[in-house]
């Protein structure tokens, strides 16, 4: 199809959709409205389960089944990327040359790396109390490791990053999430029911029953998944070369 024709089609479809969406926007309840029945119920349910962060309660307790799906999406995408970015038959690996990085930058990277790791773990650990949680903290933790690539070179990163361990951890974290869900089922309630542990004291690290455990499993999963994901892209960008390119 020619570029022109495509633009015409796009204009046609876009105009129709734009009109529809604009009309829908005018029918929407005004921005900032008061009626949120589900939201109100969720806040109430969160408080009865002693979880200070309602979003964590929704994610890891009330709608933990959604989070199972979300975790699986990440797991599947990482597995998919490992498969898609594997070394093809006509490719080989070349050792990258070591990089020379200006000293202040190197110092900064090495200094900030532990800070970022601690921050990531903090965000994971306080997931059920303050904003944050397994996903956010997991990404920060994984990113922190890659400061080593930015501050030094790929070789340095590879030394502290046993990829096999991270791949296994990724899968085991998903297992842990599922096993926690199944444990509730075996205990006689429903899948992923938060009834195994006492709910603890409101606004403490151990409150919320299984919420902190599920949160930790997701944190572990996300951190290892992001490390594996970036490793595969880095391999492509830095190491893997095609034979014919010689």
């Amino acid at each position, binding site marked *: 199809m020619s570029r022109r024709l*495509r*633009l015409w089609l*796009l204009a046609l479809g*876009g105009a129709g*959709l*734009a009109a529809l*969406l*604009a009309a*829908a*926007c*005018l029918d*929407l309840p*005004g*921005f*900032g*409205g*008061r009626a*949120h029945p*589900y*939201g109100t119920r*969720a*806040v109430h349910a*969160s*408080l009865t389960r002693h979880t*200070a*962060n*309602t*979003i964590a*309660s*929704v*994610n890891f307790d009330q*709608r933990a089944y*959604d*989070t199972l*799906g*979300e975790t699986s*999406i*990440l797991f*599947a*995408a*990482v597995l*998919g*990327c490992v498969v*898609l*970015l594997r070394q*093809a038959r006509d490719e080989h690996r070349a050792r990258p040359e070591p990089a020379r990085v200006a000293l202040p930058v190197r110092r900064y990277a090495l200094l900030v790396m532990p800070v970022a790791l601690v921050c990531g773990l903090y965000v994971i650990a*306080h997931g059920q*109390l*303050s*904003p944050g*949680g397994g*996903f956010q903290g997991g990404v920060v933790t994984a990113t922190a490791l890659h400061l080593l690539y930015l501050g030094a070179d790929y070789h340095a990163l590879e030394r502290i990053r046993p990829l096999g361990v991270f791949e296994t951890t990724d899968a085991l974290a998903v297992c842990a999430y599922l096993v926690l869900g199944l444990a509730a089922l075996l205990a006689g309630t429903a899948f992923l029911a938060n009834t195994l542990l006492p709910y603890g004291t*409101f*606004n403490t690290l151990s409150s919320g029953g299984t919420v902190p455990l599920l949160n930790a499993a997701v944190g572990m999963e996300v951190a290892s998944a992001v490390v594996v*994901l970036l490793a*595969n*892209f880095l391999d*492509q960008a830095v190491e893997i070369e*095609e034979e014919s390119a010689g």
Partner: protein
Amino acid sequence: MSTVTQVLPYLVAAYVFLTGAYGLATSRNLIHAVGCLSVCQVSTYILLLAVGYRSGGTAPVFSDIKPGSRPVVDPVVQALTLTDIVVGATVTALLLALVLQIVKRHGTVDPDELRELRG
């Protein structure tokens, strides 16, 4: 509040979706197209959070405020958006991986030059 503020967030979401779709359809570079797809997804974040906003509300996180002391916004849409962001990141990664393989096998990132599948 005026009518403009009543609907503006929704209109921005719709606008962002259509803009992203325009970029996607006219893109000459597959990496750019994947970026446009993530712009499309941004519209769903805006829409979801705008739907859940409550005037004068604050986040339903009770680590630093007393429960019931202030009105709170809807936590459910926030949880949905979190899921959505994860989905977005993973889809971006997967599609970029596919783009890399396309470059290797077809030698181009321009969708106009991909001529293997047609008819």
